[in-house]
């Protein structure tokens, strides 16, 4: 019996195609920009990290050397630097998760009104739009020497002179970062949760799952792509954020901060070294996270 070629079981027909090569044509703008403004700069930066620092028109000489890296790894404050940067970002991400997950859950399962949902989401984005510097400066009004917390404590007689340390601690960083990046955590989780078939929750309930198990075994596990996505977003964003620690960390040095300092002084090679380290940390984290969970589930099939 004559038959045409039968597609093998695993292969799906790809649906509508905008004609063979046109698909690739459409990708040109995206790929062009990605290459020129992302891949190229990063590549060059890595290369520059191997150049020698010298006073010249460009701030470096095109002589390959590993000296920069040696300096970096032997410098006494490097371990602290790396540790600080990494732990700050990690804890910030965890805190954002602690707030973002219940928020996403609430929006998905407890609010039925779509307009209300959108307004809440929009509400979360507002702090992000207020310029980065002002956002941090606004906290002076609360935690500063003459801020409201001190004012309240003084009037209540709890303390005798204002606490200046309030503002210059890691916790301020965490709060500011929470304020800024909560959206990035909440949104992917919300998207993932929205895709969960509500019948799965019903099924779990009739299969004798108490509410906390439903939360863990079903909701949490099925929104994991979104959680990891959000976690990575926040982690990477805080990793490179030098503005906030610049103003408030009270002495905590981060990689980002160092990079900006070296940059300001045109010490490109050393800045590049630090930057490359940052890049490596991010890539490792990304790699691990995406092994754990397939983010593509969030987006296709």
């Amino acid at each position, binding site marked *: 019996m004559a038959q045409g070629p039968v597609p093998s079981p695993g292969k799906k027909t790809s649906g509508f195609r905008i004609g063979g090569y046109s698909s690739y044509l459409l990708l040109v703008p995206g790929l062009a920009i990605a290459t020129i403004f992302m891949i190229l700069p990063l590549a060059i930066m890595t290369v520059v990290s191997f150049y020698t620092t010298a006073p010249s028109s460009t701030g470096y000489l095109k002589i390959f050397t590993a000296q920069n890296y040696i300096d970096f790894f032997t410098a006494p404050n490097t371990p602290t630097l790396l540790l600080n940067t990494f732990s700050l970002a990690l804890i910030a991400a965890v805190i954002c998760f602690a707030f973002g997950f219940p928020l996403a859950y609430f929006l998905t399962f407890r609010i039925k009104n779509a307009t209300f949902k959108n307004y809440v989401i929009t509400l979360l984005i507002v702090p992000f739009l207020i310029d980065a510097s002002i956002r941090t400066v606004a906290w002076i009004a609360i935690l500063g020497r003459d801020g409201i917390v001190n004012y309240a404590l003084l009037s209540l007689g709890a303390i005798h002179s204002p606490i200046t340390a309030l503002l210059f601690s890691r916790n301020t960083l965490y709060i500011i970062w929470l304020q800024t990046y909560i959206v990035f955590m909440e949104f992917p989780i919300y998207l993932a949760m929205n895709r969960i078939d509500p019948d*799965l929750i*019903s*099924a*779990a*309930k*009739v*299969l004798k799952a108490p*509410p906390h198990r439903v939360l863990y075994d*079903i909701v949490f596990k099925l929104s994991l792509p979104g959680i990891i996505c959000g976690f990575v977003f926040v982690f990477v964003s805080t990793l490179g954020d030098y503005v906030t620690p610049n103003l408030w960390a009270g002495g905590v040095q981060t990689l980002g901060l160092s990079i900006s300092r070296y940059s300001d002084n045109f010490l490109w090679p050393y800045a590049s070294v630090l930057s490359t380290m940052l890049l490596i940390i991010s890539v490792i984290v990304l790699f691990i996270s995406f092994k754990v969970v397939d983010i593509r589930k969030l987006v296709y099939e």
Partner: protein
Amino acid sequence: MNGPFGLNTWSMLTLKVLESKNLTKWYGKEVLALNNISFEVDEGDFFVIIGPSGCGKSTLLKVIAGLLDYNAGELFIKGTDVKQIPPHKRDISMMLENYALFPHMSVFNNISFGLKMLGKDRSTFDKDVKDSLKLVGMEGYENRSPLELSGGQRQRVALARALVVNPGVLLLDEPLSHVDYRLQRKLMEELKLLHQRLGTTFILTTHVQEHGLSLAETLMVMNTGVIEQIGKPNEIYTRPQTVFAARFVGDINLFSGEVSGKQGGVYAVKTALGELKVAAAAGKDYTGHKLAYGVRPEAIVVGEEALKCENHVQAKGINSYYFGNAVECVFEMTGGVTMKATMAPEVAPTLMHDRAVLGWSARDSMLIEKPSVIEGLNIEEVIYGK
């Protein structure tokens, strides 16, 4: 009757596994999904709820399961008032309409989920899951992912998953809906066998009345939030209490009529077809009443035999539908009224557009007083549609 601790001692004593009293549920302020539903389910029964889409049967099932709350009334499962009891603490299990297999777990983990939640010992899982799979004919599928399975296979896994926890009541929401015809028959047989083997109480919903008739030991017909009739399938089929029930369960020819008189155990009813006879039941005298007159298609004979019946009419055949083992013929009478008759293929009139005589006995006809349990409906509107 509510005793101490919310226990209904009467239903405990009489082995009623489920008892519902005046159960009412609103969706928001507009939609009344369940309107004063009261019924009982005996232990070990195969209880089928049928009704058109939107009649509330899925809602009822979800209320029993505890997935939805109710506004008024009482619900007792095995004698206990379940108003405050969440689904995971009720002695029920459920197979949902779209199976809802957990996509991120293997078949084994799906099935053992309930056992895990109940805190059973891990070492027993293997055996229980195996037995469960065997029960539904899916041995060896433990390590597959639900995403690899066909619809029928998923359904069996969902069934196994629901059964493995040994529930007091098994709820099945439209299990036969998304399955093709061949598979439906097979599944019905298997469900019936399972029920006989396990003895668990089954409560099943479907909108296909043939399934209801075949599977049920007790059948309940629902219509927009109310119960039209409960009883044994053949009771409902031969003695429907409302026009709705008569229409929904099986096929029927219906006419509105007025009872003109009673003679020797037989009513004479004036209808559009002329005067028809129907056997009178003991009790109420319907003389003078406006009612619905009905006769099932299989009770009608055609040809010479028809002339011997108490009721016969002249008709012209307009269409016929061949079902292999039977033929359904549609006839038209004076006045444009149509009737359906089913008969063996050998007996069916071979020539359509031919005159024929239809006949049926008074004993095979029925009189139905109420259009529906729902108040305020006009009987003629229910019969002929608006």
